[in-house]
């Protein structure tokens, strides 16, 4: 700016200050901390490679994890992270109690619920020498990872991928969760039993939702009921207008129930909006396992809606399983959270991985791939019998029915029934 009265007016030039001290300090500090921590711990742990044998000390095996800690499945992914630490602890204790001088370490990476990152994680983990990886969560991620795993002999165990197109035998992909065909049967039986004769299926337009809806259509047709389908685009920030369309569809077709196939964030969003719709509050609602465990469903708005419409959902669960109850209690004690859906499948996957490595005697992918089904045959855990079928997926998956009930501590998820021999048996009455 020119100063009036000065003889020389310095022309405004771009002052080239080479660096701004403030800025450098602000940026460098976290970088330095990060790197320092990394090196410090590297020196301390002497880690590296999948197996380290220190004479007269423990053999350390590493198990890799690729979890959705950010992205669409992150709310479940965060809970899974806690399950991982619980399970690893249990595994190490169990193994020690059998007299093995072995320790298992977890290496956890975030895959942001993205396919490419999942592949990158699997590649990085395998390049660090890890041969057993648990995850990824989404079927599309498993598909991308499959070729690399098969080619490089890495055992991949997914606790939550349910796509029917991955039921391929003789590969390195194992899934400790049953296919959705079974759950669709449970869900359709539940709805039919509760009186649904004109349901509208509201589902995610992705693989999970589409496959589920198809199974439902088939199951209902066997019972002589025709369903109405309405799909919605995934990954949106809000579903209010989809819910409005659903409401008008329900009204125009005179439907008596809605079956929702969703994940947790979209499910919670949809239920919150449905709670405000007169039409939608007058029909029965049934849900798949996706939203189970998500704390957003325990918000009062949704809780009230649940009791109004007598909301029931299904999920993979071995009923009256004392191991599951035990698991639940310990999660609550240690971390203050209820286990969400697939936590039990994840827990068992970790146990299976550990025992398979031990049984194989060496940290070799091919060997572990062969011992895993053997170990699973006799393993019973919080998710029930772990046995695999020919395609490497969980052979026996039971399903339970859950509801959102009001307790002294607010709304909670409660398992209120089982799907047994083709019909649903309620163990308690949740909605008056």
């Amino acid at each position, binding site marked *: 700016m020119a100063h009036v009265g000065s003889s020389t007016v310095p022309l405004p030039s*771009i*002052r*080239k200050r080479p660096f*701004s001290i*403030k*800025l450098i300090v*602000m940026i460098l500090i976290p970088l330095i901390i990060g790197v320092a921590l990394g090196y410090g711990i590297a020196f301390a742990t002497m880690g590296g490679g999948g197996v380290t044998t220190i004479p007269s000390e423990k053999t350390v095996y590493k198990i890799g994890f690729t979890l959705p*800690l*950010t*992205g669409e499945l*992150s*709310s479940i*992914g*965060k*809970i899974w992270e806690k399950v991982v630490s619980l399970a690893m602890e249990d595994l190490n204790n169990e193994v020690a109690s059998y007299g093995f001088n072995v320790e298992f370490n977890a290496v956890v990476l975030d895959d942001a619920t993205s396919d490419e990152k999942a592949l990158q994680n699997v590649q990085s983990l395998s390049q660090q020498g890890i041969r057993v990886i648990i995850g990824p969560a989404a079927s599309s991620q498993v598909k991308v990872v499959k070729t690399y795993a098969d080619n490089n002999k890495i055992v991949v165990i997914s606790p939550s991928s349910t796509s029917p197109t991955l039921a391929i035998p003789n590969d390195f992909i194992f899934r400790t969760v049953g296919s959705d065909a079974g759950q669709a049967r449970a869900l359709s039986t539940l709805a039919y039993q509760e009186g649904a004769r004109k349901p509208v299926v509201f589902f995610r*337009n992705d693989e999970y939702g589409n496959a589920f809806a198809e199974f439902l259509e088939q199951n209902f047709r066997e019972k002589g009921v025709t369903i109405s389908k*309405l*799909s*919605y*685009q995934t*990954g*949106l*920030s*809000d579903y*209010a*207008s*989809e819910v*409005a*369309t659903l409401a*008008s569809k329900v009204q*125009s077709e005179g439907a008596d129930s809605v079956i929702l196939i969703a994940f*947790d*964030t*979209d499910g*919670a*969003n*949809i*239920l*919150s*909006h449905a709670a*405000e719709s*007169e039409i939608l509050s007058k029909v029965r609602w049934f849900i798949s396992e996706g939203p189970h465990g*998500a*704390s*957003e*469903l*325990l*918000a*009062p*708005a*949704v809780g009230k809606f649940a009791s109004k419409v007598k909301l029931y959902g299904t999920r993979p669960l071995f009923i009256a399983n004392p191991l599951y109850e035990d698991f639940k209690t310990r999660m609550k004690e240690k*971390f*203050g*959270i209820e286990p969400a859906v697939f936590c039990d499948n994840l827990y068992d996957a970790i146990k299976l991985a550990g025992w398979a490595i031990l049984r194989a005697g060496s940290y070799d992918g091919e060997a572990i791939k062969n011992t895993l089904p053997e170990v699973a045959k006799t393993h019973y855990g919080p998710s029930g019998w772990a046995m695999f079928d020919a395609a490497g997926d969980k052979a026996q998956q039971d399903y339970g029915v859950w509801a959102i009930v009001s307790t002294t501590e607010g709304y909670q998820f409660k398992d209120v029934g089982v799907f047994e021999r083709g019909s649903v048996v309620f163990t308690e009455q949740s909605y008056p």
Partner: protein
Amino acid sequence: MINFLQYMFFYIIFSLPLTLSYRTTKVINFVHANFITYGAYVAVFLHGMFGNTSILLAAIIAFLIVGSMAVLDNLLVFTPLQKRGSSPAMIMISSMGLWIAYRYILYMLTDIAHFYISKNFVSYGRITYADVPSITLGGVTLSQSFIAGMIAATIVILAIYLFLEKTRIGRAMRAISDNEVLAGISGIPKDILINLTWFICGGIVAIGGVLWTSFSGAITPEAGDSMILQVFTIGFIGGLVSLWRTGVGAIIISAMENIGIAFLNAFLGVPVSFRPFLTFATLITTLVLFPPLGAGGGLPYRFRKRRLLK
């Protein structure tokens, strides 16, 4: 129908500040998405950690915090880059870097909060506030978020209008957006005003974020990200410079998304999952039919089909 109005309120609150910030600072700011998310999370943390149920308090605190965040961005990143002669594209990419960084910082904050309070903050449910009523008019219930949204949107529109038209500072801001050099010469303290613009824009968006917590059933650290495309679309309809057109854009897009898709679904059987398709189709149509004057445009004369002088 209600949804249309509700969304209109939200879009107005989110996109007007975008246009205002761009035309004054000429920065295409991706951190805008984080403004929304951070605003929402201020409300979430206040509710989850301290049990706050006052939307007003949450709004005020969010305004202050996110506003300061915006100013900080400007001071530490945008201004130094501008002084060193970075092109607008560079600054846009730097805002992208910030966008990524902020997202992970928020994830880390939720982790820390979880450690202290044992609640999962990565995904948070709808918050019901105590100080906003939910009114029923003639059989139609207007939810909390509707009332709050209506009030907030009206205040925001009035405030921006009055500010820019009537106050000296506002007019100075408009001067900067019209012609920066002349504004500087005529004695307007550009730097202070630009910081003020950032503060206001960040703050307003944050209020929108707080309101969002009473509407959406699930708040995650990526909540703003999924909306950012629509907000930018609306901004672009306004050419990123005209506030009027932005407002109109908000109305159009909200209408397409809520009423339009309902029509298409009911009468033509278009699947509801086509909704985002509609948004973009609307944008392209608008741009082709009514090219905005804002950021330049128009086909070079030689290649236009119709010529006035033959």
